[in-house]
Structures are given as C-alpha cells and as structure tokens.
C-alpha cells in the first residue's frame, strides 16, 4: 500500500490510472481494497494518495519560500514531487523533509536552471534556517575554560545550530523581505488536508549577485543572520573543520579584528564543548 500511496499524482492531482507493466491501478486497488456504494477501490486509495502528496508538498512549500521564489511555484511543485519520489521521508518528523534537497539539486541541476547558483545558495540558506530554529545546543565554552590553554593545541567546536555560509547573493536581506508568515517553524499535525490554503503572495524582487558571508544562528530562540567579514568566515570554517585555534587564527587579517570577533562569538555562545 505504501508504494501505491506514494506514487506521483497526475498533473490534475489525481491518482495515476496506470500502474506500470501493463496493469491498471484500478485492478491493483481492487485486489486489496473493498469498494462501497459510493466509492470504488480506486477512489478510496486515491484519497490516501492525494493526502500523502498534499501533506508533503505543503511542508516543503512552507519550508522553502525562498527557493520557491527563485525557481517559480509551478516548477517548485514539480521539483518537490521528483525529489520526494527519489528521497522519500526517512525521518519520523517532517522537519527533516528537506534535508537532502541540496544534494538532489546538485544531482539534478535542471530544476535549478537558469538561476542555478542562486537556487543552490537559497537551498543551503533555508536549510541553515531550519537548523538554527531548533538545532541542538551544547554547553558553552567560557573565557575561564580557555585560560591558560595552548592555542596551538586548542580546538573549539561550533554550536550545531550555527551555520557559516558563503553566498553569491545577499539572501539575508532577500529572506527578510520574503518573510511574512513562516516564523513559527515546522509543525506536525494529525488531520487531513483539503489542499493548500492560499497564502499572501506579495512579489519580492530577486537579489542581484553580491558576495556575502553569513552565519545563520539563533539568539534567545530567535533565528538571526549575521553578516561576517570574509576572513572571519574563514576563521569560523577552519574551526568548524577541526583546525586548532592557532591554525584558524592565521586566516584573520589582523590581531585586532580577530580579538573583536572572538569577543563577539564568545558573547553569542557560539563555541561549545
């Protein structure tokens, strides 16, 4: 039944009447589902088939408003179907539904074209927002923990909810302009869906190319995008990659900036044990 429920719908959002290898879906449905006086076995199976897609498509729709704006609504829906067919949900929570979307877009760049670079940046940025919203937080490293430690041996871990990003577009500004409704995060429910409710659709101009460095993070349970200096980004990436403090610090331009960045990052609680 799972394979029947998760088969892609037709463009008219109906169950596909053809099952494959010459069989009709109606016959497959009739083999295990009883009809009643109003609905055939096909009709009854179709209710589940449509519910499956409405629910999952709604979830991606809500989680990736930026990607939707970049590739267009119609293409986004078609892409979502192909993505979910290749990578069905493998988590008990819908929160992780988009976890392999970046991988998918790299495998199938036709979905991202013609704004391939923008779409790939956007999917990384929007996944980082999901991580920042409810990603784990570990005990914070304090100044006292660092006193007397040898920088050439000290390795600092970045909080799991902090994602440093190098982007070709100012997606922080774009995202703020787009955000109208989705600051409450993903939610599971247990009711059936009758399809997508119409959402307010103010158009926002797509961003022009501009190299930006960001850390997507949260502070007091609110998600923020913090602009970074290129070398600050390099330092953070080096630390995240497991470099020692001394090694990572070589990426900074000057000692004074490095001192300022660390003061701020420590204040934000970005380093953890």
């Amino acid at each position, binding site marked *: 039944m*799972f394979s029947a429920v998760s088969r892609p719908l037709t463009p008219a959002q109906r169950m596909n009447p053809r099952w494959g290898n010459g069989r009709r879906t109606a016959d497959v449905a009739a083999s295990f589902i009883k009809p009643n*006086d109003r609905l055939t076995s096909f009709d009854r199976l179709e209710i589940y088939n449509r519910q499956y897609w409405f629910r999952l498509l709604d979830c991606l729709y809500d989680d990736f408003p930026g990607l939707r704006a970049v590739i267009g609504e119609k293409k986004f829906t078609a892409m979502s179907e192909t993505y979910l067919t290749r990578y069905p949900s493998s988590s008990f929570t819908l929160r992780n539904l988009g976890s392999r979307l970046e991988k998918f877009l790299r495998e199938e760049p036709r979905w991202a074209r013609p704004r391939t670079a923008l779409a790939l940046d956007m999917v990384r940025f929007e996944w980082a927002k999901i991580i920042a919203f409810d990603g784990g937080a570990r005990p914070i490293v304090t100044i006292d923990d660092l006193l007397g430690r040898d920088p050439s041996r000290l390795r600092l871990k970045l909080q799991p909810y902090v994602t440093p990003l190098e982007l070709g577009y100012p997606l922080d500004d774009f995202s703020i302009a787009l955000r109208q409704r989705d600051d409450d995060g993903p939610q599971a429910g247990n009711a059936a869906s009758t399809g997508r409710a119409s959402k307010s659709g103010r158009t926002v101009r797509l961003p022009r190319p501009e190299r930006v460095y960001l850390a997507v993070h949260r502070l007091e349970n609110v998600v923020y995008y913090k602009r970074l200096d290129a070398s600050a980004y390099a330092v953070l990436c080096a630390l995240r990659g497991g470099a020692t403090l001394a090694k990572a610090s070589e990426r900074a331009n000057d000692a004074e900036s490095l001192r300022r960045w660390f003061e701020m990052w420590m204040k934000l609680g970005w380093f953890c044990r």
Partner: protein
Amino acid sequence: MPANRHNGFTDLGIGVGLRVPHYSHILGRKPAVDWFEIISENFMIDAGRPLRTLDLILEQYAVVQHGVSMYLGSPRLNRDHLKRLKQLVRRTKTPFVSDHLCWGSVDGSYSHDLLPLPYTFAAARHVAARVREARDILEVPVIVENVSSYAEFHASEMSEWEFLAEVVERADCGMLLDVNNIYVSSRNHNFDPFDYLNGVPLERVGQVHIAGHTKFERYILDTHDHPVLPTVWRLYAHVVSRIGPVNTLLEWDARIPPFEEVHREALKARRFLRDLETQRSENRKSAQTVTA
C-alpha cells in the same frame, strides 16, 4: 470510572490542543484552561523556541502528550523515535502518552499519514506487542486512538471496533476514543457509530477526542477545521452517559480561529457533563423514593 490506570489516574477535565497561533494568547493572557494536549513530534527536537514555549506552558498548565508517528502497526518501532519521546516524557511529566491505531512507515520510509490496518487477528497481536514494547520503554501508560479511515481491506476478519477491542485487551492498555473519527468512519463505511461505542470496552477509555470534519459529496474527510457537529456531540454524550466525566480534548488543526473560540467550543462538553449530573441526582432521588 474516568480516572483509571490507563490514564495515570487523571481527571483532567476539558482541554484544548496546543497550537502555534495560540501561543501568544496563552502565554500573555493565561486563560483558565483545564489542560493542553501537545503533538509530541513538534517538541521532539534538540533545542530552540518550541521547547522554550513548552517550558513556559508547563509552568502553568497540565500537559498531555499525543503522538502522530509511533506507527504501532508498522513492522517495527523506531528506537530513536522512542528515545526522543522518552526525553520529552521526562520534560512534560505527561501522565500517559497516546498515539494512533495505524501504520505509516515501511522500510525506513515515512508516509506522515495515519494509514488504516487490515482488521486481522495477526495485526491485532502485532499492534498489541508494539503497545507493550512502547509502554515498557516509556514507563508511562500508552493509550491507542482509533483513526478516521477511507478504505477497508478484503483481508479484514472483523469490524473496526472488534479490532480495537482485540488490541486493547491483548495489550491491556487504554483507549483514546475519538468520537469524531468514529463518526467519520461510520459514514465512510456505512456502520452505526453506536454499534461501535457499544462494541468496545468503554471502561478502558483514558481520554476522548472531539473535533470537526468536512463533508464531501461521497465521503467525509477528517480535517479538524470546523466546530464539533451535533451528531458527534451525541456520540460524546453517549460515552459520558456510560462512563461518566472523562478527560476530554478538542482538536482544531486547520483554519484555526482565535483561542477563545476554540476554548468555547471545547467547553460545550460541559453541558453534557451537567446533564449527566442532573440525570444521576434524579436517579438517586427516585431510588430513595423507591426505598422509602
């Protein structure tokens, strides 16, 4: 009868499902609500705002956990899921945990839907074993909820209510009886919902769900986006008349109106509890008259 071993001996009253659009109203105005039911999966996360909000709610209200993805009818339970669920149980101190009599995942792929089971003895044994397993791990009572369904299987060997009874007797667990789901399924499968209510061991009811639904031309969809319909209230009244006041919860999941409206709808259940009280005191009086 209402407080029993299946619901951790709780008599919670009339509660409302906790939903995001109501957070600021609840935290700001602190309405007098008997209890809240949360969807466990929304809080089975590592950190962040949802957990912070939950902690604030927990400071002031009784909270019960209701799950949507334990999938008691799937081939096996997900241990990672149960581990996270147990962490949440420790946080909320929920007196019991509920989830659905359904399946929804296979070979590690998740439908995120509550799919119906074939009503066979083998399936009942399978689900009952999973309920016992979940209860052993979670160390709180696990109660199972009947789902709304849109399909029936050739393989079924019994009615849905016989299946539910078989499962809960075998697992020795309680039921979260969703009277809206019973109504929806009764219309979709042409049975009398009162046969259902009379066919399950009502002494095992740990909680009741009430909700609204959407009627289509040829079937009814369980949408939780309307007030409770009079026919569903009649089923609720029947349950209450048989077992007395019971933990009652209104589910409203889509097109969610302001909190006061949802709460007002839930509190309509009080009318049936008052009727029951009146009925009982009249019965007592007439019994006294007869004895005198």
